[in-house]
């Protein structure tokens, strides 16, 4: 299978700070790919580069074979990459349903058709019962699922999830993992996720990329990466390895 997302030699500096250094990896269609590493390793910057918030100083990013680096975030979403934010950004005065409608309306311009898809997505993410609640009144786990639902409503081929498990209790984490696995299995959605919660990474990811100080220090299956000495030293600590 050809690569859906191809990141090639990408670097980004911020006023002398090298946030991302010469990072390369590819993600194949239907894969679940995780990006891990200590805080400040450049993971979110990498996502922002892919999603079009920043333009790489060097390197290229290709999606379905076409270059996307330097394009605007809305253009990249229209091309099929959906993303969530590390600190969730719901539309506070809109209901759960209306939040997701905003996403659905991207591909379905008619209100009625968008509503149909919105309700489908809400059911998938276990939010249908709360569809009339204002987003500002939701608990954190619900907001996280709303964030995913909204991005999902744009019919992405690739979903970028930025620390979507952060702040969730283990039962909530398992629920989210179940939903993501289900999505990947039934629709073939490709998922790239940044995660600190190793429980989720081990359950979800087929391959893992490890970043440290902006550079790649390991890239392999979870089992291998978790035992990599460099990874253990810089991030995981010996407790993570049984």
């Amino acid at each position: 299978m050809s690569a859906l997302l191809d990141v090639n030699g990408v670097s980004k500096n911020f006023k002398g700070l090298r946030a991302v250094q010469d990072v390369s990896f590819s993600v194949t269609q239907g894969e679940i790919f995780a990006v891990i590493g200590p805080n400040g390793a450049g993971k979110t910057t990498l996502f922002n580069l892919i999603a079009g918030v920043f333009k790489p100083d060097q390197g290229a990013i290709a999606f379905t074979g076409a270059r996307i680096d330097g394009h605007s975030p809305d253009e990249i979403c229209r091309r099929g990459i959906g993303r969530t934010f590390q600190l969730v950004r719901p539309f506070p005065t809109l209901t759960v349903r209306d939040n997701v409608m905003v996403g659905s309306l991207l591909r379905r311009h008619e209100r009625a058709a968008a509503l149909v898809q919105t309700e489908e997505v809400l059911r998938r993410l276990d939010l249908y019962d709360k569809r009339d609640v204002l987003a500002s009144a939701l608990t954190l786990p619900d907001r996280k699922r709303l964030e995913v639902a909204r991005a999902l409503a744009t019919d992405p081929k690739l979903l970028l999830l930025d620390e979507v498990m952060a702040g969730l209790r283990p039962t909530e984490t398992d629920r989210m993992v179940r939903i993501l696995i289900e999505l990947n299995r039934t629709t073939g959605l490709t998922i790239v996720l940044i995660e600190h919660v190793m429980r989720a990474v081990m359950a979800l990811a087929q391959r893992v990329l490890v970043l440290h100080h902006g550079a790649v220090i390991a890239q392999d299956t979870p089992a291998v990466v978790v035992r990599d000495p460099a990874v253990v030293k810089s991030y995981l600590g010996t407790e993570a390895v049984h």
Partner: protein
Amino acid sequence: MTSLVFADIPVRGWVALIVAAVLLLLVPPFANDYVITVLVLIFYFAFTGQAWNIMMGFAGQLSLGHAFYVGLGAYAAAALYVHFGIGPWIGMLAGILISAWCGAVVGFLAFRFGVGGVYFAILTIAFAEFARIGFDHFRWVGGSSGLFLPVAQFKHNDLWSLRGNPTMFYYVMFGLMVAALIVCRALLRSRLGFYWQAIREDEHAARALGINTFRCKMIAVVISSGMTSIAGVVFAFYYNNLFPEQTFHISKSIEIILGPIIGGIGTLIGPIIGAFVLTGLSEGLLDVLATLKITVPGAKQVFYGVCLIIVIILMPNGIWPPLARALGLTERPERKP
């Protein structure tokens, strides 16, 4: 299209709207001229408030210089009538074009260069001030001495040239107010309306959902400015004189936004309720002051200021949302899950 405008309104809402409309339509034969002129003013503010609300309440862009667009519409139509005898409904087209174009310039400058929030508000003030001073020197439209429309004795109402007694203007303005309400409802419930609200709430998140925020904001500004200029045309033909110092003055811009803010920004009924409350109370106050023999200039404005502050403090979302909830007319669900 019809479902956009007419669907999802609770029965109570229909009843309220129809009753209100019928009552208002039946006023002129039974009321004196004073009441009619007050209501014309209310409808005017309801209309301009709706137009302003598109930019602020829907798309989240604070404009403090909307008098700019009123003035452009007014001057365009009036000048064409005075110099070339072109009727106001044709002149209105010119007014809308000019106004929308200027709005596009303001929007383009602001959005391309990332000017938002308070800075955007100040930019809009600057344009209105620029027009106020500029038109003072604009000889062709009368400069600071003003532009005057010929006032003749009317035996009958001439709707085409907007020459007539207050009752004719009453129905014209009422029609415009209703049209604005319909248009705004359609816009709010359309794809564009959703996108505007998303931009208003969180522009960054909106972009991540594929929304071209620049284009959507531009459309909001263009529609808002074009719509506002329509009121300007009627204004010109109603009062029959225009002075740059008054027409473009910042106090006129503030008057326009008082209604929606007091009534409820971002709602459809808010600007209308706000216009009624504000104008009604203000005229009521004039009565009270007259009976108390206080004729000091400025007293009415002090009252305005106090009202404004009270509403802003006690009802930060305006009068309509709590009122709607109390009357069971709300489309929005309650806050609790």
